């Protein structure tokens, strides 16, 4: 049987984009109030062109409640998945991802600290948590890689994962410590550790889109270097990659993206771990194709996960992190066993 990746062509992107748009529309239409697809399309089209929206269409729900949320979900999904794909290539490690390495939990620690200490930037309510989340994401990544490097100079899969797990435990105990001192913030702190996208607004989406444009652009620009790293760091050096500089640039881009994502949505696990694997089945390991495909896959997956989270037990909304972990872990085990058996 031919592998799926052998059939990859640019048409696949068109299909992925179409699937993404379909999911976006689906997620706007479905919810506690069902909205006809036609109304959604008319509302979006008219507001894009600055036209009056006809009466009888639930304008407020579409434009002020669901659209911001859906945009944020898609952007967070794309960002997390892109970061996972980049880290899996850079560290040559199919288990690398913001959540397995403890970067996401590090970012939530930063956000929780900002919340408990009241760090804020005047004029931009999310600024303090966002900045702290980015800072802590980068510090966590630096700490984890530094510790792993001290343990084993080749930065092998096992030592990175081991340090990542230990670091995550450390961080969660730190978060629990903060909770015990800051009882009044407990509800909002829980949000950072489980993830949720309710109540996100268009300015969050704007910041996310900007971060994705800048950092994502940087990561995509280094697709060839990521291929070289995925083959091996020594090999990358031998063919002329400036190993240290490229590694640092990619790690900074990844930390900023994870930091911004976590500050908008809280820590959502498994998107960055599983979606690049799924994308790799379609595109093969070449990052020039893998990175964009991972972004589409991540966005689609998180949209469907969010839809599930808010509809399956409606009117109760379950945390989106619970859905992604349940689905992601199951899918990951299936993928992992299949690839292991195939050798």
């Amino acid at each position: 049987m031919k592998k799926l990746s052998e059939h990859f062509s640019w048409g696949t992107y068109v299909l992925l984009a179409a699937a993404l748009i379909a999911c976006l529309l689906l997620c706007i239409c479905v919810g506690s109030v069902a909205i006809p697809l036609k109304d959604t399309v008319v509302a979006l089209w008219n507001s894009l062109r600055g036209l009056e929206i006809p009466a009888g269409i639930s304008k407020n729900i579409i434009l002020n409640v669901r659209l911001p949320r859906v945009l944020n979900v898609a952007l967070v999904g794309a960002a997390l998945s892109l970061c996972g794909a980049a880290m899996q290539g850079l560290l040559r490690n199919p288990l690398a991802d913001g959540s397995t390495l403890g970067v996401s939990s590090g970012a939530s620690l930063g956000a929780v600290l900002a919340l408990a200490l009241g760090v804020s930037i005047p004029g931009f309510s999310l600024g303090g948590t966002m900045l702290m989340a980015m800072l802590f994401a980068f510090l966590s990544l630096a700490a984890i890689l530094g510790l792993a490097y001290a343990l084993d100079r080749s930065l092998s899969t096992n030592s990175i994962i081991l340090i990542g797990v230990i670091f995550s435990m450390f961080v969660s105990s730190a978060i629990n410590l903060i909770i015990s001192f800051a009882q009044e913030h407990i509800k909002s702190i829980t949000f950072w550790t489980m993830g949720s996208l309710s109540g996100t607004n268009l300015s969050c989406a704007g910041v996310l889109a900007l971060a994705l444009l800048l950092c994502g652009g940087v990561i995509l620009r280094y697709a060839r270097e990521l291929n070289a790293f995925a083959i091996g760091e020594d090999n990358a050096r031998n063919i002329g990659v400036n190993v240290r500089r490229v590694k640092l640039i990619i790690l900074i881009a990844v930390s900023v993206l994870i930091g911004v994502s976590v500050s908008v949505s809280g820590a959502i696990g498994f998107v960055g771990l599983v979606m690049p694997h799924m994308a790799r089945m379609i595109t093969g390991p070449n990052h020039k194709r893998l990175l964009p495909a991972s972004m589409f896959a991540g966005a689609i997956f998180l949209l469907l996960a969010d839809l599930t989270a808010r509809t399956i037990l409606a009117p109760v909304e379950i945390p989106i992190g619970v859905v992604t972990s349940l689905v992601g872990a199951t899918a990951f085990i299936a993928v992992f066993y299949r690839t292991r058996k195939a050798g």
Partner: protein
Amino acid sequence: MQMLKGNHITVRYGDNAVVDDLSFELQEGQWLMLVGPNGAGKSTLIGAISQGVPYTGDILLEGADIRRCKAAQRARKIGVLSQKNSVGYGYTVEEVVRLGRYAYTSGFLSTRDDDGKAQVERALELTGLTDFRHASVLTLSGGELQRTFLAQVFAQDPQILILDEPANHLDLVYQKHIFSLIGQWLKTPGRAVISVVHDLSLARRYGTHAVLMNHGKCAAQGEVDAVLTPENLRSVYSMDVYAWMKDMLAQWQ
């Protein structure tokens, strides 16, 4: 013309000097064989030359400190085949080989690599991999993988080839094929080769010069016949290497 020169290179892992105050010189047209027992520091020396291992002392590439050389600039001059090559993801042979052209196309103002396609084709052909070009590297045998990375180095089109055990995983047919291929490659002016070789017969057959290493130090260096003498080998390997090799060959008569 002097192509590469090492002055008092020392590499330490903790207190242990793996390469200890070693100097060498590589002239145009030379094939320098690094020989010596396991743990002599041969691969570490190659790691230092390829800037993968921190060292003290100087390595001069065409007279200039190699540390100041930009990574891509260095890669256009020196191609390195590492000892351990494995790939974690299912890249195709051609994708791996094509990465050898990285140094010619990197940078924001990347120049067009008009020559690249032809170089990749030639490298695939030379190493006998044309039919495998679309195969996933995960499905290759050890020898095929070794040839893939060798093809990558050829595609890189360097002036100095540095090969850490190029005969690794290769059967006799490909050993002979690859070594005579490198010999041919060396005939073009302005080129030189350094290789780590365990098979002393191969070292003697193809090398012009040799550095015999033991415990990180240079035990002897110079022209290959003057270095690989019975006395030198006996002192480094602590056994009568000549008698052993003659004995091995005698079985076939």
